[in-house]
């Protein structure tokens, strides 16, 4: 059961396509675990469908349909028999690759966390940086040891955390698998992992994080020293 879901405006920005790609990764990860958010996204996309259908048509070029048919014909014929078992043709595979969640997130959701290249960041935390399309964002997985506390930090910009395994408590609230936390820039954060298992979270933030404790400056994983 998911207790913390994204605010409506983030789901709208996701469904319209306006949300920056690194943040969209966080929403997509959460929504895979949350039927309620999936339904909400589908509802907003349904409005998008009507908005598309409601547009005044703009004339296509004369041979547009022929060109499209030629393209699909080419693609349909391009799969040699020997490669059929290998999956869809190359351009399709490329599309699937681009649209999939980052492999480390998929591995975590599938319980295969030992395949991830964790890097030690102090005694409490391991992390791994994931690829994203925008330089001013950072997308990371963090693995926090059971029962341990993440160094205190605050946020300049937006920070989103999605809990993937285990759970943690931040202030009054507890977050478990699938929960989505939007960090309030004004508040100090000091998440504590549950006692019974390691906690893995996906964190997406706009770079530029302000530290509030001197110890944090040394070991806080958000900082590039």
């Amino acid at each position, binding site marked *: 059961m998911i207790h913390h879901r994204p605010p409506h*405006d983030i789901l709208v*920005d996701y469904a319209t396509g306006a949300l920056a790609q690194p943040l969209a990764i966080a929403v997509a990860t959460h929504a895979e675990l949350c039927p309620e958010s999936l339904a909400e996204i589908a509802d907003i996309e*349904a409005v998008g469908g009507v908005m*598309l259908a409601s547009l005044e048509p703009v004339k296509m070029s004369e041979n547009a349909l022929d060109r499209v048919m030629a*393209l699909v014909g080419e693609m349909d014929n391009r799969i040699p028999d020997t490669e059929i078992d290998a999956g869809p043709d190359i351009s399709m595979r490329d599309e699937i690759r*681009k649209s999939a969640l980052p492999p480390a997130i998929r591995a975590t959701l599938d319980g295969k966390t030992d395949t991830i290249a964790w890097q030690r960041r102090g005694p409490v935390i391991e992390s791994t940086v994931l690829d994203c399309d925008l330089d001013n964002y950072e997308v990371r997985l963090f693995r926090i040891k059971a029962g341990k506390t993440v160094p205190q930090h605050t946020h300049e910009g937006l920070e989103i955390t999605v809990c993937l395994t285990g759970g943690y408590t931040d202030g009054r609230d507890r977050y478990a698998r699938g929960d989505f936390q939007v960090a309030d820039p004004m508040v100090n954060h000091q998440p504590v992992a549950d006692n019974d298992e390691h906690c893995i979270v996906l964190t997406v933030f706009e770079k530029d994080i302000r530290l509030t404790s001197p110890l944090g400056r040394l070991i806080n994983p958000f900082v590039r020293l």
Partner: protein
Amino acid sequence: MATLQTLNCSAKLFYRRSSVRPLPLRGDAARQGWRRSVTSPDAERLLIAVAQHRDDQAFANLFSEFAPRIKAFMLKGGADGAVAEELAQETMVQVWRRASSYDPVKASASTWIFTIARNKRIDRLRRESRPTLDPELYVSSQPQPTSPFDTVEAHQKKALLHQFVAHLSTEQIEVVEKAFYQDKPHSAIAEDLDLPLGTVKSRIRLALGRLRMLIEKQGMEENS
């Protein structure tokens, strides 16, 4: 790089044009506009014919209905004419190739095509990829929450949504258009309109909520 600059320029150009453009008319004129723009109730059937039989004629019909609207969608998103044409063609290529993954229970044809066009737009105009969901993996065994869109009958109502848009206020139409047509996040819409972010959030929320309420109301009327 040149292309990117061209795109940026055309985005700005469009921006200026759009800001002096009259908002959609309300009342009868608007209703007629929406009605004219309705997709045929056959769109789902055509899409399924493409999926199951690779039906050229069905695809040609879908093409004439959707390609010119996808082109309009791309133009509104800031593409110039040539890019909009190309993106509309590429979107239709995807419609053909992915038709077998279309599930009429989950979405209307126009919604499904919207998601493909939206992803194309992100990919080309913003140079970002789009993480997509694979919900089957994790949530298929869980009970789905009830939504007016959950049943096949309810899904038919989606096609009628256009009738309700005319019930929105001019201000609501304005923000909804910026969100869906111009690929703008809440923060950019607030900046455009020189409104506090909270106002934009509540305006969009109210607009979408109103649409949903009208659908539910119609559903109840038809069931009674």
